[in-house]
């Protein structure tokens, strides 16, 4: 019997807040309603889509594990205007 112990990946998000803040809000409109997987430094979108499992599969196809990214859910365009 074999066991497959994979080391837990902790992404380095130290530069994510600063880099992510530089992305113009209007840039994200094209991802409305989608799950977006960002590189840990917040400079690139590695995969995106409406179905999170599908995004994870896309990441895996590119050799990226779901724990190596920062997830963001972009509100759909018909989302409520305010969170209460």
């Amino acid at each position, binding site marked *: 019997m074999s066991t497959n112990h994979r080391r*837990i*990946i*902790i*992404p*380095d*998000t*130290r*530069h*994510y*807040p*600063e880099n*992510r*803040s530089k992305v113009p*809000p*209007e840039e*994200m*409109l094209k991802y*409305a309603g989608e799950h977006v997987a960002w590189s*840990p430094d917040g400079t690139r979108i590695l995969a995106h889509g409406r179905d*999170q499992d599908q995004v994870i599969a896309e990441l895996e196809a590119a050799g990226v594990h*779901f*724990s190596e*990214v*920062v*997830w*963001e*859910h972009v*509100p759909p*365009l018909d*989302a*409520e*205007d*305010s*969170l*209460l």
Partner: protein
Amino acid sequence: MSLRFFYRKVNMGHPLVPLNGRSVRPRPLIPVTLIGPLDSWTDEGLLDTGSDDTIFPEGIARRIGVDLTNAPSSRGAAIGMGVVPLRYAEVTLRVADNREQHEWVGWVGFTPAKLRHATLGFAGFLPYFTATFLGDREEVELAVNSLYPGT
């Protein structure tokens, strides 16, 4: 020293009357990593002083290897969502900016309800920080306080 995060400018796609026609909502969304027995998951969580608990979607518990089968359970009420079920587990939480990073074990509520954002509320998160919301700059500062149990 403290962690400092910019508010996320969430584009709503149309002018917002209460913000004098601005089309983005500034929200204190920060990246937070949950570390479970098998894996980690990094998501953006909303710093919410009005939330009693730190809440994440239940699917994340499964992905990081947290077994909720016999977890203590409760119910929460979210405005507009009615009553939502919660199951609690202790997990490691981690936050970082380009100056410092912090990691501690805290209680997180997991819910099957569809959330707009994970919520970083009192239990599990806010007791350990002095949070300063800089409304004019649309930034938030988190400084660990004497209750902070982590590293």
